[in-house]
């Protein structure tokens, strides 16, 4: 197997990731790329406690993830590459050859406009997603495996009903 999902989710490790995707895809490891979490033992322990014993979590900042990505891709287990924001995933696309991006959860805050029930984007964030697509990545929005993937064009145009 390999990294079967490259997901942007501002809640990082939570039920949809661990259970929703983790169980049907038999996910055995998560590569969590977040500078703040990578710098905090307490944060890492928090997220480790959120996964079942058979699942391993690896924590990296962006440079560290770029060094290890090929190793994770060669892993015989199924894994998820996870970032909490769009700019971080964009770096992994442009410098780490990530070619498919799942927008799994970006929630409401001031300055963002709702695009889907679980996706709210600022204008800058929408531009960053377009840049990922321009760099060659296939970007879709999908919160759980049973949902229909919404292509980026439909996500940004509002044509997704």
């Amino acid at each position: 197997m390999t990294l079967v999902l490259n997901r942007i989710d501002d809640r990082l490790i939570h039920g949809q990731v661990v259970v929703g995707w983790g169980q049907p895809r038999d996910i055995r490891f998560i590569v969590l790329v977040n500078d703040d979490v990578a710098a905090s033992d307490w944060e890492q322990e928090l997220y480790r406690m959120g996964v079942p014993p058979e699942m391993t979590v690896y924590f990296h900042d962006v440079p560290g993830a770029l060094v290890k990505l090929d190793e994770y891709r060669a892993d015989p287990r199924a894994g998820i590459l996870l970032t909490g924001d769009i700019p971080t995933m964009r770096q992994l696309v442009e410098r780490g050859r990530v070619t498919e991006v799942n927008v799994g959860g970006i929630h409401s805050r001031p300055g963002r406009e709702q695009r889907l029930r679980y996706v709210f984007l600022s204008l800058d964030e929408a531009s960053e997603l377009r840049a990922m697509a321009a760099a060659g990545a296939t970007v879709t929005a999908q919160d759980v495996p049973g949902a229909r993937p919404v292509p980026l064009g439909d996500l940004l145009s509002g044509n997704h009903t």
Partner: protein
Amino acid sequence: MNSGETDTPLLPRAVVAGHGEFASGLVSAVEQITGRGAQLVPIAVHGMRLEDIESLLRDRMMAAGVRVIFTDLQAGSCTMAARRLLRGIDGGVLIAGVNLPTLLDFVFAEGSDPVEAARHAAERGRSAIAVHANAPAGATGA
């Protein structure tokens, strides 16, 4: 108005938080079975950032004056937010993976310290899961 045996109003002793309407469903069941649902403050979480969930939990706990949190799923965002929140609450406790037997035990321990009652209730809830299976038709056993 609660339908329990006491005439004094039941004060909140804990919050219950979870995905969708999980919390209100559980609290509704507690109320129906015991009349003591008012001890529990249900919090529904729909599509919120972790920071906003933490803020919501903090506000509800402060308003209710409680330091016990029950959440639905160990890996869930409510649990993650609650763990962050508890760093700032001396003596607080989080019980993740709550079920109905846990809450029933908790609400009947009115005379106990809520934190100790929550710990006891967690053990009760853990042991309350049972499997009842009929043998397949025609099975004769070994």
